[in-house]
């Protein structure tokens, strides 16, 4: 394909300034490309005053995602919420942080409840109202997986968002099927000869979602607002079952500083531990390349849940365990082609869409 025909990458017209991070300040960006969050007219779908911990990645992720969805749906959203932190910290009645129509039913049924809402809206002739369901990783990969898989295979018109903080934080940091190897949780204590969560376990929900052949599957982190919003925007253009998996660090459960939430989320991507990509109709269409590859140790050292890997002087106690995690990250990088950072910037933003050559 000749260069002028190439589909312009989402971000290639941005001019980046080095500010110690890779965030592009909104004031430097063409107004049309600015984030929903930068607009003071944003919905604030989940508004201030909620009871999330300082530095909560989930609260941030939910606001980013729902505000973007509200913008895309012209303010007509019904949100369905699974039980979990997000539900508990947002609705200590008589206060509610939700400025969208919002329903919480149970822990494991948000996908099915969302299916019911979507069906009712079809019957009532309201295709303009869109349905977004949201849950933590427990409500998504474990207790909610049956209903989620059912919603996927029926291709119900629901955008399901998983805010993944890699354990059951609301109940006191217990292991989930999304807890990574070596992470300390209350049920994978840093005790005994094999401290932390085991290797060789866990569910990769984005890949399972892709296997359902649904129209859209994407991953994102709260570290990249532009990317997250773009994925919500893309999801909202499409119909049928769509899945967005957002990594949201949890200072309480991860034993990290509230100020490091974004930093840790970025490191999750930059190490290769959390590949950021999108897939449509079962095919990966977009991979966010790692700009500055980091060793997994840089990610682990910021988190108390991995403290058992290091001694008081900060030396690795069991380097072979860290090497195993590094191998997982390396495999992700190879598998998704995350190491395109060295290819010319014109093509760095995305891998070609399906059909492009």
């Amino acid at each position, binding site marked *: 394909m000749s260069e002028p025909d190439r589909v312009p990458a989402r971000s290639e017209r941005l001019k980046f300034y080095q500010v110690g991070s890779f965030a592009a300040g909104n004031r430097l960006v063409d107004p049309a490309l600015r984030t929903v969050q930068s607009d003071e007219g944003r919905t604030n779908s989940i508004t201030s005053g909620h009871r999330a911990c300082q530095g909560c990645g989930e609260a941030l992720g939910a606001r980013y995602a729902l505000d973007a969805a509200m913008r895309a749906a012209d303010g007509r959203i019904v949100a369905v919420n699974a039980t979990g932190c997000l539900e508990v910290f947002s609705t200590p009645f008589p206060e509610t942080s939700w400025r969208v*129509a*919002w329903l919480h039913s*149970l822990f494991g049924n948000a996908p099915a409840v969302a299916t019911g809402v979507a*069906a009712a809206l079809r019957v009532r002739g309201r295709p303009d109202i869109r349905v977004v369901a949201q849950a933590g990783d427990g409500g998504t990969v474990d207790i909610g997986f049956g209903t989620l898989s059912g919603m996927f295979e029926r291709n119900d018109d629901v955008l399901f968002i998983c805010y993944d903080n890699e354990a059951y934080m609301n109940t006191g940091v217990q292991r989930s099927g999304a807890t990574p190897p070596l992470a300390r949780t209350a049920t994978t204590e840093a005790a005994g000869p094999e401290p932390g969560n085991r290797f060789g376990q866990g569910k990769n929900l984005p890949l399972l979602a892709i296997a359902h052949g649904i129209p859209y599957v994407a991953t994102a982190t709260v570290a990249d607002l532009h990317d997250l919003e773009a994925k919500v925007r893309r999801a909202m253009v499409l119909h049928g079952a769509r899945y967005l998996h957002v990594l949201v660090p949890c200072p309480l459960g991860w034993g990290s500083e509230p100020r490091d939430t974004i930093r840790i989320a970025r490191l999750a991507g930059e190490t290769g531990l959390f590949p950021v990509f999108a897939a449509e109709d079962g095919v990966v269409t977009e991979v966010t390349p790692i700009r500055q590859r980091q060793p997994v140790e840089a990610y682990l050292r910021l988190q108390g849940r991995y403290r058992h890997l290091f001694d008081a002087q900060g030396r690795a106690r069991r380097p072979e365990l860290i090497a195993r995690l590094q191998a997982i990250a390396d495999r992700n990088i190879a598998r998704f082609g995350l190491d395109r950072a060295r290819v010319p910037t014109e093509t760095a933003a995305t891998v070609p869409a399906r059909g492009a050559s």
Partner: protein
Amino acid sequence: MLRQIEGSRAVAETVGLCRPEVVCAYPITPQTHIVEAIGVKIRRGELAPCEFINVDSEFAAMSVAIGASAAGARAYTATASQGLLFMMEAVYNAAGLGLPIVMTLANRAVGAPINIWNDHSDAMAARDAGWIQLFAETNQEAADLHPQAFRLAEALSLPVMVCMDGFILTHAVERVDLPTQAAIDAFLPPYVPRQVLDPDDPVSIGAMVGPEAFTEVRYLAHLRQVQALELIPEVAAAFAEQFGRPSGGLVRSYRTADAEVVVVAMGSVLGTIKDAIDVARQDGLRVGAMGLTTFRPFPAEAIRQALATAGRVVVLERAFSMGLGGVLATDVALALTGRDVPVATVVAGLGGRAITGGSLRGLLRSAADGSLPALSFLDLDREVVQRELDRMAGRRRSGPIAENLLRDLGSGPRRDPAGAAR
């Protein structure tokens, strides 16, 4: 219109006339024919606009109904037995949220041992869930209870469960008078929700409620159940006036005016009981029957009145609470608090065991002569029980009980379990 029709199809036809908007289906015997038949009608466009959703579990079925109802649609599903237990968390949730979902329960035993035949242990497991629970005696009543259920549910913002005996009713082909669309439309107004998910007027539904208000929320749910005690007879009367036949209501009495012994029961067994009473009356026994159409809310006052002149009460129930005895009997005894009337429990018809006229006539005789114990099991095969008790006493690893019993029964000549207790 009179039709010779299977009970499940009669229910499906009538539910169709109620203009459901979202119907969720998950297969479980003996409920399947109901949702299958509704599914065909939806496929053909006869119920448009209506969505038929094949879900992945009963838990999902009730959850889809919850979402649909909260978004303002008239939602319906059907289940039985394990299905009801699997969806139980959502069953409680639907009632707690005050969503007027209607569900048919094709009553079936709950395992283990797995058993597809009829009893009421499934419905009893849901008795405290906050649903209105109605029991049909006949297929005509099973059909007629559904428009009444939608009307009650939507008037009170409470879910309603219509219980009909699995196989005995669901699979019986009988004459049923099916209503017309115009008549149902006149009886059942469109659904106007008290709460709805509306982006133009956003509300949060399903918030956490702490100790400061949980009691009051529950008390209000109780008040609506108490209201239902008033409304159920009104709706039944309105139905009788419009359709010209009695269906529904709280309780119904049969030959109780001079009865010394009154048998209390729910569901299709009432037909057999009435026949047995007619025979017993020819033998000079003063016996009658009282059927509950409404189990939740519990019509204690109506029961007190219906049993005002009874000298002895026998509660025959197709379920029981292990370690206690009768479930319905416990409630009936509570309704009779302060009156010196013995209430005996007879557990009968578990897991589809036939409740025969012969056994019931024997029961009525022993009730009349005062020899009926406080708790008994109709047609219990004591010989089979004793063999297993001996086996368990004989060795530690005596093996699985259900399989042992089946082996015992299979090894000898086939015996009529009804005859075993004689």
